[in-house]
């Protein structure tokens, strides 16, 4: 993209995009995990409903994705400020900023949400078509 205007403007755009990415890290991981698990499960069950062998692999896959996502989210939570400095640049090395708090709590909420979908995976048959 070509632009005139002040030289710093591209940084402004990237700075907000980076900030948003940092703030939304948790929910974004949740979204990816949710989409993968739901899509793969739906696809597998549509292709071969009632296949127990697939069921086993499917279960393993979904548990793996969920666990990996939770781990990734927790990793960001633990080294959040360092990551923010890397991603967003920025000063404020000392102390938690509002952005750190927001990002951190969003990760916690996302971890809860992902764990709950893990609970569902653990408690329910994979491709059971019938209701109750």
């Amino acid at each position: 993209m070509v632009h005139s205007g002040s030289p710093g403007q591209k940084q402004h755009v990237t700075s907000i995009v980076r900030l948003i990415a940092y703030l939304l890290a948790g929910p974004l991981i949740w979204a990816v995990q949710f989409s993968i698990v739901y899509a793969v499960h739906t696809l597998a069950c549509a292709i071969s409903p009632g296949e127990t062998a697939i069921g086993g692999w499917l279960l393993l896959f979904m548990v793996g994705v969920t666990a990996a996502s939770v781990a990734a989210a927790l990793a960001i939570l633990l080294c959040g400020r360092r990551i923010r400095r890397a991603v967003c640049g920025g000063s404020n090395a000392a102390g938690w900023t509002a952005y750190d708090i927001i990002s951190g709590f969003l990760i916690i909420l996302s971890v809860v949400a992902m764990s709950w979908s893990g609970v569902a995976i653990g408690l329910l048959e994979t491709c059971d078509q019938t209701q109750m």
Partner: protein
Amino acid sequence: MTASSDRRLPNPTPRPDDERDQLERIWSTPKGWRILSAVNNTAVGVAYIGGAFLFFLMAGVLALVMRTQLSVPENQFLDQDLYNQIFTVHGTTMMFLFAVPAIEALGVLLLPQMLAARDLPFPRLSAFAIWAYMIGGLVFFSTIFYDLAPKGGWFMYPPLTLTEYSPGHNADFWLLGIGFIEISAIAGAVEIVVGTLKTRPPGMSLARMPIFAWSMLIFAGMIMFAFPAVILATMLLEIERSFGWPFFTAAKGGDPLLWQHLFWFFGHPEVYIIFLPAAGLVSMIVPTMARHRLVGYNLIVVALIATGFFSFGLWVHHMFTTGIPALSLGFFSAASMAVAIPSGIQVFSWIATMAAARERFRITTASLFVLGFLFIFTIGGLTGVLVALVPLDFQLHDSYFVVAHFHYVLVGGMVFPLFATFYYWITMVSRNQLSERVGRWVFWLMFLGFNIAFLPMHWTGLSGMPRRIWTYPPSLGWDGLNMISTVGAFILAAGVLLFVVDLLRRFRPGQRENENPWGAGTLEWLPADVYSTRSIPRVSSREPLWDQPGLAEDVEAGHYYLPNAPTGGRETIVTSPVEAEPEYIIRMPGNGWGHVWAAIFTAACFLLLTVKVVVPALICALLAIASCIAWAWQLDHGPGKEPVEIGGGIKLPTYMSGPSSHSWWAMSVLILVAASLYVAFAFSYLYLWLVSPQVWAPHGSPPLPTPSWAIGTALLLALGTAIIVVANRLLPAPGRRDIRGVLLLFLAAACLAAAGLVELFVHWNSGLRPTANAYGAMVYMASALNLQVAFAVLIMAGFTVARAFVGRVDRERRVTFDNTLMLFVYGVAQTLLGLILVHGFPRAVG
């Protein structure tokens, strides 16, 4: 002003006398019937909220009519057909014509004031959306009076709404009504995203934004991703109704559940789209009434963002009883649980803030409505948890329990905060406040009436009464409960009526006399006039009026930024999105007629299409496009003026292109909307394949055209991209006229359109027909969506050519060129994705 001098104000010296007059002249609202041409947020915002409230009243009357019918079993007050129309119109009006527009209206009205901006960055766009919504909404609502109203429910499930089961135009009117709200919602989203990110006052970093601004930002973000799904769904439904492309017909490989997926992917976030801003309003009122900053500001932001996100993961919880695999239900049940937590955070934040009150939490009518909201919404949220438990939902779904639940959520979560807003912010637009004495009556009538009406419905539903039934037999245990609900509904209505009477008595358009009657801390309570605040302050906290003494006087005296109108027109300061440092002066269009005509002709076009009067509809479409062009012609002022001084030694340019400019941001938002529409389409395509792979090429349909066609189309797109790179280089230096560059731009646009047409041609030649099966319909739909973008690019390119002819496009004055270019690049990307989907996917799986 002694205090101010030592705080190093940007413009410490007294301002010239005539500045205020100049501002007043520039921002003046036209008189008489010319007020229709007004674009200032204070003028059109009032019309917007007034229109939305009118729809609330009308849909409320329909609710009373329904409650009257249901008061006793076997009632003959309404007949079946009319009842079905009424509940459809009630739901549709409340959701689409009242709730979303009311929120947007508050955004238009309050946001600029809270951000101390002179106006939102695209005033005419707001005005256009408002007029289109008013015309379309009124026509839609009036169908109830001549038996043309839709009767498929506000959710319009096919196949009930396909021509076979809903002949006539009734269902089309629903599509018309929602079409307008789609337009105005997208326009609003553009406006609000750019407004909150780019027109904040200097110093108001994201972390200092008022909670309402946060909630509106998230609201707009959600619209960007939720509305495209329903836009696509309505397109598909109307195309199937009109031309018989079988997207939803199971016999031809379509699936009625596709509609439910698309509709609820929009419909569930929609609830939060309505609720979040209302919660944002509450987060503004509670601290004021407590005279204490919001406890847990950051957590509230967390709650807003989390709700906005998780709400996209619950759409299937409207489909728990459709028989999809249990594990899927489990996922969505889990996500539904997750969305409950943020609400808990907000509730406890408000409670904590109340507890933190200096002295004691003040009880005004506004705070009564907030407390009422807290009570009702908490119940609604908790019953929401019950509904989210899958087995429970098997019993509760589509019963009166759900009716009770979502009225608790929506009336509690949105209507009560709205009334609090009326009482709290009325002085923004009226010289008088509403009566606090009458207000108590209004509140208690509404609060008691509401609970009397809807609390029993939980039991009605558990006793087995389904929704959407116009009559019921006696002695099933529902009679008494229904009668109580009806009585409650009338009490609630009495409260609303009392409010309307008080409003009519006390409302006097104009500015308030007491600038800050509640002693609030945010910028909307600065002294203001039609031009908003006299000067734009630099803020250093979340509640500047509490933390920066003398702010109001200094702002009013013009000691802060931009106390005058240096460009001689409407303008405001654009700041950087994160830290809010001044970047440039945006020059905004004033009053005009182009957008009004565009709205009228758009409305006329949709209406005529609804009743299948095609030729006049096309003429209106052309006139609408012409009006848009006339309106857009006046924009893009060009650099023209030298940078201007806004105070504090800051000199800002008055023109900007590229990633800092508001138009670049608006275009980006629009492209995101288009992209999520196309993602929704890709989902639909894959979904239908999953449901009926047997109709997919090459087995169930004519074989795909040879790959060389797809490669050729891709090459055409590449050619267009190459051309546009050259075009960019050929733009003339400022002040010179050279149209070679823009002509190449047009050529590139033509390549894009040609790529779309080639696709159509080869599929037609392969013998595939859109009416044959769902696969054919999807293939042609891909082209339809691509051509739609190509058509927009062509028009924009033509517009750019026209401007280049008169020397209004060059290397600096290039916003028009850039916008076209951006949409072109997006169009190329979308068309390529379409090629992969249509040519690649069937080969990969076949």
